[in-house]
């Protein structure tokens, strides 16, 4: 029980082990642990970043979709407008054309009416002359009574 010189050797041996562990053991294992901790921290940070990026991308995608929708609606609106314009224009054109055709027809009719009137006038004049000849019994010189005839025709 009473200590002998052994304790000196035990103390020195203990110190030697402490020194060995301090020099060759502890730094290595601590470096490994710290490196792993750092790696884990980095991995977690990367995962967080990726998550944030994904969220960002999702938001961007939603934005794009919204924009595309708005654009599509705009395009549809424009198309409608254009269609309306085309229809309106076509309508206007058709109306114009109709008016033109009507005008042409009218002039034609007018012409024809005039011509028919002329013809009728001529015929009336001839009939009048024939009637007058029959009444008078002799031929009326058309040339001498031209002014009279013309006046008659104009009166009819």
């Amino acid at each position: 029980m009473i200590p002998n010189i052994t304790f000196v050797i035990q103390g020195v041996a203990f110190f030697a082990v402490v020194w060995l562990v301090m020099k060759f053991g502890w730094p290595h294992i601590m470096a490994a642990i710290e490196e792993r901790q750092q790696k884990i921290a980095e991995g977690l940070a990367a995962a967080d970043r990726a998550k944030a990026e994904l969220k960002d991308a999702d938001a961007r995608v939603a934005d794009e979709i919204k924009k595309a929708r708005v654009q599509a609606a705009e395009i549809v609106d424009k198309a409608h407008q254009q269609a309306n314009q085309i229809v309106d224009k076509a309508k206007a054109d058709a109306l114009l054309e109709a008016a033109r055709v009507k005008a042409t027809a009218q002039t034609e009719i007018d012409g024809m009416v005039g011509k028919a009137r002329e013809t009728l006038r001529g015929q009336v004049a001839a009939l009048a002359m024939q009637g007058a000849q029959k009444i008078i019994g002799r031929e009326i010189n058309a040339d001498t009574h031209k002014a009279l005839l013309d006046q008659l025709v104009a009166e009819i």
Partner: protein
Amino acid sequence: MLQTQAAEHESASGGMTEYIVHHLHHLRWPREDGFWTLNIDTLFFTFVLSALFCLLFIGIARRARVANPGKLQSFIEMVVVFVDGLVKETFHGTSKLIAPLAITIFGLVFFYNFLDMLPVDMLPSAGHAAGLKYLRIVPTADLNTTLGMALCVFFLIHYFGLKHKGPKLFFAEMVTAPFHAHGMAMKIALAPVNLLLRIIEEAVRPVSLSLRLFGNMYAGELIFILIAVMTLDAALSHVSTYLLGFGQFIAGFIWTAFHILIIVLQAFIFMMLSVVYLSMAAEKH
């Protein structure tokens, strides 16, 4: 059993005493008694277990893998992180010494203590068969081991204090704390008291450290020996043999289970107190 069975009742008690004394005797060289002798058994087991600890710890540490640690590496890392956390809680500063010192103390004391878990007669009987007269296998049940470690810690405390405070403050604190004086005369008057208290404080540390561990392990070993003594002179013809044998089994089981707690606890206490002492040495009063 070392004892022969042919013993009468009176010599049985003598056999018992002899058995116990025999078990508490170190294998010594070059002489049996006195200061200038070596406890060969303690030195041998210390060396073997220290080498084992170094091989295990340093071997694993040098081959430590970052990506895919093995089971053993994971276990050692767990202990390392635990000890490192304790040290960081206690000592607020940077030191390359404290944490490795703490884990060495913990590991070595645990390894030394663990030999107590071996059946008390196993290695001594083997040694006896090999021609060794005495053999005590638990290094921490030898005061030399605990005293050597405690003194080592004691010197490290002062080295640490000197390094952190500088020589001027280190020596000044010896005579100015714990009683602080203001006047010069009072300072001189209080200096001897302070110095005396300081010496007592410092001397108590290695003594308490070494005696605590030694006492626990020695007592534990002694109780194992006493449990072993229950069937020392057993004979198959005696009824008491069966009763005592059963009692021995139960007692041995309970004490071994309890001792598992003690060996870890004592290793932890030795480590923790060393860390606390070293931290205190670095603090300025």
